[in-house]
């Protein structure tokens, strides 16, 4: 009797766990509402997103971007008269699961097109699956050099990143620091970097540039990307008391941990810029506080206050649907929305969802439009038209500050104000 009960319990618990895992790792498949139904078959678009795990905040923002785009397209009658249907799977931020997901999307779900996941870390293995199956891989958050130089992409040329290639994203910042008068130019700099293909290249390039300008490096180390506590690394940076901190971060918790440790050590860098994190709108300010955010900079190609007409339309729709304000919108939303826009232009231009034609079209010398600005791809899928801006939090608002003199740029807050404890 007992063994029967134990076996029953075994099967029950195992089933429950498997069911829960499947629920977590599989579909949040959603069709988009809006527009009138048509008789033509819908365009099925598959994507894997980090709806749980380390990148879940970004994954959710990406999901909103994809869904917002699909809703807009369907409300306008679809593409070539076909409604768009999204098939989104959860990869739990795992580079292994993302491979499984795209294999399923292509081989089992028979999607027409694939959109990219969040992060360079996941885009590289995911795009290789798409390459093996002859799929174009349009993505918005895989800008690390390793994504483009992956052997699968060098052979198939199927990756198309609609966003900013991250290698050069800190160039306007480095140029601005170099341009400062000698009396105002910082003397020392620290470069703590998370061990991630996204975070390191732009920071290392900045380090080389600033060293060339005579700014002494007092700290340059890579720390593990996934540890529960960044305090030791942050404390070691604070102990060096650098004028500038260029943080190779991938997410909000990393930046928040450094900020907290700096504040605990009564250390305020004069200039503080992060590779990622501060561009996540309220997801950032709700953790660190708007006061503490003041003066912190981050590179990107888009912000909620962009004058781009398409962007303003998307921002208005986003606020109508989710609330908040323009500064609070995560930049991931615009990256995801841009993926959809570029895919739509390719579908319309090629007359359908033939991936071979779409790849050829996207490599043709055509300039496309997106909420992030113009998009034109080189042979490896980098967006040559992307313009790098540096943004800064100023009194609760996320504003463009660099390049100086560019349309939309306001005066940079320098030096960074002292911490305000929230």
């Amino acid at each position, binding site marked *: 009797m007992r063994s029967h009960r134990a076996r029953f319990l075994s099967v029950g618990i195992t089933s429950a766990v498997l069911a829960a895992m499947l629920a977590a790792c599989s579909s949040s498949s959603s069709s988009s509402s809006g527009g009138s139904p048509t008789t033509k078959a819908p365009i099925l678009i598959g994507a894997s997103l980090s709806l749980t795990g380390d990148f879940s905040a970004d994954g959710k923002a990406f999901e909103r971007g994809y869904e917002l785009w699909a809703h807009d397209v369907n409300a306008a009658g679809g593409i070539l008269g076909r409604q768009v249907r999204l098939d989104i799977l959860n990869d739990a931020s795992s580079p292994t699961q993302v491979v499984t997901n795209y294999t399923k999307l292509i081989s089992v779900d028979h999607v027409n097109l694939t959109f990219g996941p969040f992060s360079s870390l996941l885009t590289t293995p995911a795009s290789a699956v798409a390459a093996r199956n002859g799929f174009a891989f349009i993505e918005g958050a895989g800008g690390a050099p390793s994504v483009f130089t992956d052997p699968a992409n060098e052979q198939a040329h199927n990756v198309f990143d609609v966003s900013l290639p991250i290698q050069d994203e800190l160039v306007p910042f480095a140029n601005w620091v170099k341009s400062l008068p000698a009396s105002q130019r910082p003397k020392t700099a620290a470069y703590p970097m998370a061990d991630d293909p996204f975070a390191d290249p732009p920071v290392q390039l900045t380090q080389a540039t600033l060293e060339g300008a005579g700014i002494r490096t007092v700290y340059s180390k890579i720390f*593990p990307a996934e540890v*529960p506590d960044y305090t*030791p690394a942050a404390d070691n940076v604070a102990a060096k008391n650098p004028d500038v901190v260029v943080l190779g971060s991938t997410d909000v918790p990393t930046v928040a941990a450094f900020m907290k440790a700096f504040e605990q050590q009564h250390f305020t860098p004069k200039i503080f810029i992060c590779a990622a994190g501060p561009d996540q709108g309220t997801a950032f300010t709700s953790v660190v506080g708007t006061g503490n955010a003041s003066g912190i900079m981050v590179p990107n190609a888009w912000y909620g206050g962009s004058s781009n007409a398409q962007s303003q339309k998307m921002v208005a729709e986003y606020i109508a649907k989710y609330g908040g304000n323009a500064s609070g919108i995560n930049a991931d939303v615009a990256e995801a929305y841009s993926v959809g826009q570029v895919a739509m232009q390719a579908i319309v231009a090629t007359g359908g969802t033939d991936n071979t034609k779409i790849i050829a079209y996207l490599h043709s010398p055509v300039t496309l439009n997106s909420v992030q600005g113009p998009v034109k791809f080189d042979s490896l899928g980098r967006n040559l038209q992307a313009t790098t801006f540096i943004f800064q939090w100023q009194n609760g608002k996320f504003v463009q500050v660099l390049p100086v003199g560019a349309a939309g740029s306001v005066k940079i807050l320098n030096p960074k104000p002292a911490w305000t404890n929230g």
Partner: protein
Amino acid sequence: MASTLTHAVINGILGGGVYALMAVGLTLIFGVLDIINIAQGIMVILGAYLSYVLSVHLHLDLFVGLLVTVPAMFVIGVAIQWLFIRPLRGRDRTSMSLLASYAVAIIIEGLLYLAFGPNDVSLSASYVISGVHMLGFYLPYIYLYGFAMAVALVAALYLLLYRTRFGHSVRATMQDRTAAMLVGIDVNRVSALTYGIGVAVTAAGGMVFGATGGGFNPNSGYDLISRLLALIILGGLGSIGGALAAAVLMLTIESIVDIWQPTWSVAVFYAALVLVLMFRPAGLFGRQSARAQ
């Protein structure tokens, strides 16, 4: 350099206190129930979220809030033991408990996602940022308070285990569950209460973890569980004092390595574990015989 090294050592010791608060519940539960509670990481996060709710919505001080979260977590722990762990029987009980506690972790994580969403939150208080200045650096009060609380909790658990009738029942159950039943100890009750206590002390760990890090979300528990397991294995499975000692030792080593090469700190953490286990397979304070049931 001396100041940096001193800072790293003190950081390691105080950080060890934070980890001990999270690990003692895990080792206590293993000691009595002979199960690996994979859900311990999410319990830490649940404790942090409970503190967050009390702090943000009721404006309760984080430490005062523990007067609510610790009993609440005790009730949650007893309920989990009754619903998921107690029904497990037979020779597969220990391995089944891994699945059961993993299921618990997934369920709680899902509920936290529903309640709080994926964005990070953090716990704040004046003593999280302010601290005492010494030797050229600041020691945040939250770490000092957290370490003091860890020592106090370990001492309290020792008193509970060695100076009370309930403690005798717990230790008898730890040594031989069947024999304990034969002498009239209600091992089901002991197991439920112990699981509840193990989860309850985790509330304190969750609060300090939530206040010292850069924020947490429903997923943050997964980064913790492997380290907590390593700590209780190193300390000796079932040894509460061992968990504290192991946490202090490992965090200190990690903190020192961090000065020179942060990327090695995690590797050194686990390398130290392997090295110690080569010479002391039962861990620093483990007793092989106590686990030989």
